[in-house]
């Protein structure tokens, strides 16, 4: 006697294939998911007490990074400007702009502004701004087009693979020290006409890899096996 219709054979066979696909698919989804902004916060514009625009201050007014982020060259922490720094200018201009009230209030009351962190690393990662700056890693290499951010957001995923990409091939990203704070810096592209050619140490470089390698030497950046040792970032 038959308890199953003939068709069930087909279903049975199909199910074999489907199970495999389902498992593989699930794995794929998980792997993708952990790289999405949902997890990494990359590209997420967070609410801030004051709608501070890097675009306006950097591109518009051409203020240097270091005017506000004072300790970026000397300390692990780039430094967030004290209210005083804002007031320096804003007691002359936009003195009664409504959206600057929090700043003025902070200055009056002496109570600090509470910004929401944008670029955030886990507590077990020890990143040091000063050494990166010193070795020729540009601000926008990690922070992206900060000079075109009306509201600041995190540019990179800041996951380990992001850091390792550079730590494993420094030559791909290094630039001359004097270009570190230059937001418009373009790395050299292989181009016969010498587009974006970079002159360093009397030599002209049309190729980032060549330049990077030279800089790695010149700035005696530690070897790849050194800067990929775990204790470089984890203590």
């Amino acid at each position, binding site marked *: 006697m038959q308890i199953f219709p003939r068709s069930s054979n087909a279903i049975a066979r199909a199910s074999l294939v489907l199970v495999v696909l389902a498992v593989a698919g699930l794995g794929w989804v998980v792997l993708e998911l952990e790289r999405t902004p949902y997890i990494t916060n990359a590209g997420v514009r967070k609410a801030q007490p004051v709608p501070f625009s890097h675009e306006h201050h950097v591109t518009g007014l051409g203020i240097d990074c270091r005017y506000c982020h004072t300790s970026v060259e*000397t300390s692990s922490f780039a*430094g967030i400007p004290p209210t005083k720094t804002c007031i320096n200018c804003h007691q002359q201009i936009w003195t009664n702009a409504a959206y600057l009230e929090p700043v003025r209030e902070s200055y009056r009351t002496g109570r600090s502004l509470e910004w*929401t962190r944008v670029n*955030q690393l886990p507590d077990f990662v020890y990143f040091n701004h000063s050494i990166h700056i010193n070795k020729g890693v540009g601000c926008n290499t990690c922070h992206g087009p900060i000079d075109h951010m009306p509201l600041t957001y995190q540019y990179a995923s800041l996951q380990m693979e992001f850091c390792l990409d550079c730590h494993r091939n420094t030559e791909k990203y290094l630039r001359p020290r004097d270009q570190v704070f230059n937001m418009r810096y373009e790395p050299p592209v292989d181009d016969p006409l010498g587009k974006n050619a970079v002159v360093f140490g009397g030599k002209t470089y049309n190729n980032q890899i060549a330049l990077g390698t030279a800089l790695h030497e010149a700035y005696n950046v530690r070897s790849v096996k050194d800067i990929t040792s*775990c204790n470089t970032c984890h*203590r």
Partner: protein
Amino acid sequence: MSIDEHKTKPAAAKAAAQPDVCPTKRKQLDLATVREQIEDTTGPEYWRSLEELAGSDEFQEMLHREFPKGASEWLDDFSRRGFLKTMGASLALAGLTGCTRMPNTEIVPYVRQPENVIPGKPKFYATAHTLGGYASPVLVESHLFRPTKIEGNPQHPASLGGTDIYAQASILDLYDPDRAQDITYLGDVRSWNAFIDAISGPLMAEKSMAGGGVRILTQTVSSPTLAAQIRDYLAANPQAKWHVYEPINRDNVVEGAKLAFGEPVETRYDLSKADVIVSLDADFLYAGFPGSTRYTRDFAARRNPDADMNRLYVIESTPSSTGMKADHRLPMKASDIQSFAGALAAFGRVDPQAARPTDEVGRLLLAVGKDLQSHKGSSVVIVGDHQPPVVHALAHSVNQALGNVGKTVFYTDPVDANPVNRADSLKALVDDMHAGKVDVLLILSGNPAYDAPAELEFASLLKSPAVATKVYLGSHRNETAELCQWHVPEAHYLESWSDGRAYDGTATIIQPLIEPLYNGKSAHEIIAVFAGDSGATGHDLVQAYWQKQHTGADFDTFWRKSLHDGWIADTASKPKTVALKTSSVPAPQSATASGIELNFRRDPSIYDGRFSNNGWLQELPKPLTKLTWDNPIMIGPAMAERLKLNFKDVAELEFNGKKVKGAVWIQAGHPDNSITVFLGYGRTRAGRVGSGAGFDVYPMCTSQAPWFADGAKLTATGETYNLASTQGYQTMETPNGSERPQVQERSLEEYKKEPNFAKEGEPPKDLTLYKPEIFDYAKETYSWGMAIDLNSCVGCNNCILACQSENNIAVVGKEQTLRGRHMHWIRVDAYYNGPRDNPKGFFQPVPCMQCENAPCELVCPVQATVHSSEGLNDMIYNRCVGTRYCSNNCPYKVRRFNFLLFQDWETPQFKLMRNPDVTIRSRGVMEKCTYCVQRISEARIDTERADSTIKDGDLQTACQQSCPANAIVFGNLNDPSSQVNKWKAQARNYSLLGELNTRPRTTYLAEVRNPNPELAT
């Protein structure tokens, strides 16, 4: 104290004890109300209310309702510490969002950033930690004005970079959440002004009668400012009196000096010039002995077998770390030492053989005598504080006779501003109190209600209405605070201005690094109030005083320099010549003590009990026993055998009518017929950490016999009690009789004959089946290594605490220590070899060996421990999944595992205390010594920014930095001129378990003793 009192009571029981303490008995609790209640209450109430709250059924019920996960915690036995963890954990759970994404956090910048503050860069300030009146100079690391780490002051003669354990641990006291947080009157919170108003009334009244009813009870005061303040007050109120008491005092030393010279001179030693050192019961290499830090440095410097090595004889009652370092050690009942000293003094005049029978003692005496005679001017006899005055007097005479004075021994004016006899001083106060002469009693810190001599019954007297107004200045709401109407929280030394003198008299300005956390006040401010100058701040007072002292014009530069350097130039007390009144030194009466002798000693970790709420010190393994969290009844092996007592047995100690029960500890090398008990335990109001630990022996301790007395009785009770010792096995001989030469040791002669003795059994470097290392270390700029000189190490435990402080190491509590789960990254193993009644002792600090062939790395399934290019064995906590395979495979067992949530993530104070450069490890991960990799990284980055490299000596690990003996050297093996290379090049250099071919980067310099050839048997 009976042992059961230790047992932690279940929450329910607590609640039952206080029926209607929970303010919200009726209404149903939720987290909000809990927080309200906690916010409303402050100071001591804060913790109490938390506790009572936790006791209440509503709370339990609420907890289960709000987060069943946390609920299971409450099934456990309930310890105060455990409670707060749970409490915190649960409250934290409330705020926690379930998801795995990184939560938003704030950045809160300054409004006006102070000048020369660079966020992320620590700054160092010089100040001093004071203990027993003696200031030990320190540098304090400060991260954005949060003191985080204590280090020695390299420029200061009393430190030379070294510290002592009490200074190291004082940082934890600063953040102790149990510190008194408010001025209280009979337990109710009052304001500072309210106190001033309240006190001014009585003071006015007193003023009219020249302060006749005012008594000031202080601890030893070496602060010139405070002394001057009090003296001024006394001048203004001639009838008022200043009493000084401290249980661990130097009465005997002072009396001895008076006996010998007629004046209370301070004795100072220069061990760098001493070829022969004789210690009569003096533990001069351990924290608490004035100048121990400097003495250790000088002593250790003379232990180099390749230079001219000194020789140390120790005749001692209670085994001490000094005794363990001795070339010849003789255990002797404290009461017998007197006659030994006598014989030593008579040596040359009287034939020692006549003085003593030709037994072990006689032979040693003869040898010591001769040795001293042949080292006139380059020898020294040091006597312990607890030996009676006559012994001190005798020692003075010996040192005089040997012409050591002015060479190795110096006499100066006392550092103590008021060197009166403590016992008498307190007795006088008590008499006045009985006589009703005292109206206003001001107690400036200390804890007399707990530690005053038993016969004075100070506590009950303080309780009685004998004194109308009682003011107590103290950091904790302790036994004494409970009995005084007024309790003013005392500011920590890192919170307040003061000054003090080091053992050599050098004055140091004590400058604060942080505003008082709990609006505490300093002694200066209280005295100022008494003097009617209530506005004065500590800063003003101290500065004013030194303004007076300073003769030169530019006070400002002088002041700034003094603050910067950490001491005031040329304030060291000048050596003075004093004549020995030979007549007055009495002939010692030979020992009559026939019965069993009872010795009272300060605890090696918690001193007189003042540190009992300090978790670091409680869990610090005591140098010889490696005990934590308890004080034992210590006896020798022979006595234990006679009394059929064994480890874990609880015995009852009976002494002039008082009885106390405690667990027995059989200490190798302890003299027979002698018992040692340690002061400072059995506190009832120490705080959550210290209360209830151990048993209190102060009730037995009288002013007639403060240190030792005859006629104690010890009887077994049949009960047992677990003592938590961190070391499994204290000899290098295994039960099947084979030696494990973990500490390599030879005598000086043997060493001269065979310098390479330690290297036996070490395989050649190239003996390995693996292909040469993945990393070619020689090519690197740096490859880090460490060497530890076992000859210098005196087992002072500094390294352990320095490491704990630098690396945010958790305290785990007694229960976990019993299970062998303590977290110290560096431990100091103590071994005893030879006859149990007088063995040789050894100390061996063991950090991670940073093996080049690291067994741990091979077996970790997730590569959470791997090698760095500079030869470090990195441990990556955030990669660790906690299989503990690495620890199993580590032959040195230096890895530590977070079996439970050991770190306190909740207590806000501790968040301020931690080193921001070191990851805080949570539950389930392995951790271990990293060679202070955070310091390496910082140094490397700083130098690289300047396009240079780290110079030898610029970079020190925490343990190395704090080591008073310079026993640890760390540095770059690729720098041929580095100190560490010089050490590793020595013949004595060997690696622990070298035969395993793990190629440890940490190696040891073998120990060499310098025994007297005459005593060679």
